[in-house]
Each structure stands twice: as C-alpha cells, then as structure tokens.
C-alpha cells in the first residue's frame, strides 16, 4: 500500500521526467565535443598506418633491395614485385606495385622490411579519381617518400626506442 502510494506521488510529481530534463540541461551547458574537421584535427599517432612510401638513403640511393619479404608477408597479396640487376650491378626492383584497394593497412610490409624501405606514412587524406589510380607504382611510392622524408624519419626516430 505504502509503495503504491509512493509510486503514485512519484508519477504525479513527474519525478522521472524532471530527472531526464535535468540530464539534457546539464549537457546543454557542457562543452561541445565536435571537431570541426578540415580546420581542426584530432591528434594522430606517429605509428599511424596510412599511405605507403618507398624511402631513399640520404645520398639518393633507393633503400629497397628487392628481397620480396614484404610481398611474401602481405596477407592481402597487395604487393607485386619484379626485380633485375641494375646497371651498377646491384639488385633492384623493376616493378613495385601496391594495390591500395587490396591493402588492409596492417603494416606487415613495414615490419618485415630489413632496410626500412617500404613504410606506411601518417598521410590519410588521399583519394582516387580514375580506375587504375589505386595502384601505387614504384615511381609514385618513391615520390611520396621523397616529399615526406622529413616527417617519415621523424616518426621512425620517435618509434625507434620501442623496437
């Protein structure tokens, strides 16, 4: 009886409804969590795995020695490598393609690389406009590497002590 009476007063005083209204009103005065994307960006880890790049040594020599470990480890079979002897007698890739549609951005290629040639940069804002652009050829990968070498080496240095 007493609990029924209690329920009745609880219902008639709209207690539960006021509680709900209180919750929304408190949130009304709380700071917004929205990130205004193109102008503001959320913090990003130096381990971010985005667009791939092929690196060079500071003297301009390609790091990649065509060992094909990345091709072998790639779980999505996204990497295709063909190799030959270059003019200076070293082993070099003649073809190094990564299909970005197949790639699952797991970072195994970067892990397996003995010379830190293939890396995944923290670039995540890229797009394709025509079919075929999803294939990152050797030239495109090297171009990305050349352009962002400063950022890549800084990220590598930051991560080095955990390896």
């Amino acid at each position, binding site marked *: 009886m007493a609990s029924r009476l209690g329920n009745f007063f609880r219902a008639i005083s709209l207690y539960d409804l006021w509680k*709900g209204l209180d919750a929304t009103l408190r949130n009304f005065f709380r700071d*917004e*969590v*929205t990130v205004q994307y193109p102008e503001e960006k959320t913090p990003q880890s130096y381990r971010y795995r985005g667009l791939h790049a092929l690196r060079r040594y500071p003297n301009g020599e390609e790091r990649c020695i065509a060992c094909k470990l990345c091709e072998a480890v790639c779980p999505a079979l996204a990497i295709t490598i063909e190799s030959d002897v270059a003019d200076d007698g070293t082993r070099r890739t003649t073809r190094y393609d990564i299909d970005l549609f197949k790639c699952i951005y797991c970072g195994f290629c970067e892990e397996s690389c003995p010379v830190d040639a293939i890396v995944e940069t923290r670039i995540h804002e890229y797009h394709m406009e025509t079919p075929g652009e999803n294939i990152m050829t050797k030239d495109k990968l090297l171009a990305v590497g050349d352009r962002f070498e400063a950022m890549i080496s800084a990220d590598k240095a930051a991560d080095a002590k955990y390896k």
Partner: protein
Amino acid sequence: MTALIPQFAVDFWNSLPEMLRYLTVVTTQIGAVTVGIILTVAFATYFERKVIGFMQGRIGPNRVGPLGLGQPFADVIKLLIKEVVVPTESNRYLFLIAPLLSIVPALATWAVIPLSDEFVISDIDAGLLYVLSLTSMGVYGIILAGWASNSKYAFLGAMRSAAQIVAYEIAMGFALVGVLMAGGTLNLGGIVRAQAGGVSDWFLWPLLPLFLVYFVSGVAETNRAPFDVAEGESEIVAGFHVEYSGVAFAIFFLAEYANMVLISALASVFFLGGWASLFEGWTFLGDSFLREPSFFWLAAKIAFFMFAFFWLRATFPRYRYDQIMRLGWKVFIPITILWIALEGVMAWLEIGPWA
C-alpha cells in the same frame, strides 16, 4: 515623430475615407505580425537545431554566415526552388489546398493575441473561443493531406494525428475553462490584465496542474516530440507529409512551427501574465525597462516556451500510441475536471485569485 511626416502626407491621410484608413492600418498590422511570425519561425528552426545540438554535445549549424545564422534562409531557398511533386493518383485539388488549411489557422489566431498592452489586431470579447475554434481547424489540413496523398503511410499518419489532436483538444479546452474562471473574461487582453500586480498574481500558481496539462497538450496538439507519432519515421516514414515536397512541404513546416510559437504565446498569455514583467516590484532595478511591462517580456516568455519544446524533444523518446491515448483520456481529462471543481470551491470560498 509627427514632425517628421510632411504636411501634404498628413493632409492626404486625413482626406481618405474612414473605412480606407481603417483598412490600411489593419492591413499594415496584419502584414507586420505575419512577417514577424514567419521570421520567428525561420529562426526557431535554427534555434531548435542549436539547442538540440548543444544538448547532444554537438555544435549545430555553423557554416552558413556568422554562427550559421544564414542557415534558415539557405533552407528556405532550397525548399522554394525544389519541385512540388504531385502524386499521379492523388486528389490534386485537396492535395494542394491541405497545406493552406494548416497554415491559415496557425496565422489567423494571432489576430486576437495581445502583443502588448496597446497592440492587438482585433480586440474581440470572445477571444478565447476564437482561439479554441481556430486551433481545432488545423487538424483538417493534416487529415486532408493524408487523404489526398493516396499513400498508406500518409493516411495512417493523418489518422493518428487526428485522433491525438481530438483527444488533447478536450484536455486543452478544460484547462482553458480553468483560465477563464480565474480571469473572469474570454478576452485575452482581459485575462492578462486579471494577472496584473506581480509574479505571485500570475495564474501559473493557482492553476499549476492546468498549466502543465495545457502545455503538454499543446505539445501533443502541434505533433511535436515526444508526441510525434504522426511522423513516426521508424514506422510510417514521415506521416501525413510523406508525399509533399518543395513549397508545399515548406508550408507544412511553417505551420508546425507557427503553431508552436502560437502555443507558446498562448501559454504566456494564459498563465505567465502575457506582457507583464517578471521584476514588477523589484525597486532596486531603478527605472530599467526590465521593470516595465512590454512586448519584450512576452517575447522572452515565448522564447522560454520554445526552448521548452526543444528541450522536451531532446529529452524524451516517442510515446507509444496507446500510451498517448491513455495519457490524454485517462490522466489529463480527470485532472482538469478535478481542478475545475476545486477552482469552483476556491471561488466559492473566495481564496486565491478570487479573494
């Protein structure tokens, strides 16, 4: 002010026949009020999106113009240049007349609402009856829209909203009976004047349950969340206006928001002393305009109720249909009848506002 008007204009004005002068004045007033309401509605949509955004930890519109203030105009322009699609099997005439039937009562009711002590377009004695009869007209627009669309969803939405509006109309009417008992008049200006004297004289206090019933019924009447089963997008797409697009849809939208502003204005007039100031007796405020009863206070009260509409929408989930019916018939109507009886006793014993 008068000195600014050149003499020939004054002479011309005085030379006009009485009827024409009256018509000009009234038409100007109607135009001013209508434009004011339409602008209010435009910014109410902006206000709503901001309020709900803030309550959900978001920012709301902020891209069009400074602070996103251009958003309503962008929306209006978009709706105006879109095509009005008329379904092939629909009843064309009714389909196009339905939006008008819902906007006209929402705007026409403003004729009797006193915006300040001096300004009311038509100061008729039976203002409350006029308000009741015109707000009931709004349901025809919805029913006709649902019927003429020749769509099951639209028809179901119309049926739901018709049943709901009829149910809550009764509770609303009873709540207003309480107001007219307390005010002793059907004239809206008279009701406001009966509340003069300060915050403690407002009808809000002796009629608190009626006030709550009135406002909640108003939310149900305008088909707003949490009573928006007429739209119920998870079940019946968008309810009665599924088939509407472009300007026809814009008019329904306008009518819904105009009705919200109207319910807010009526709630302020009936229970919160209309244009009366919140700080009536606060002498330490000096001669500030805040102490003066003015249109500003009515606008502030309307803004508060609009905020309450959005607050409710951001807080509560949609009622189930049978719960809506239960609340309307089994809770609100008994409460109002009980309170009217109690009010009769209070009036008999001369306590409260009848002392």
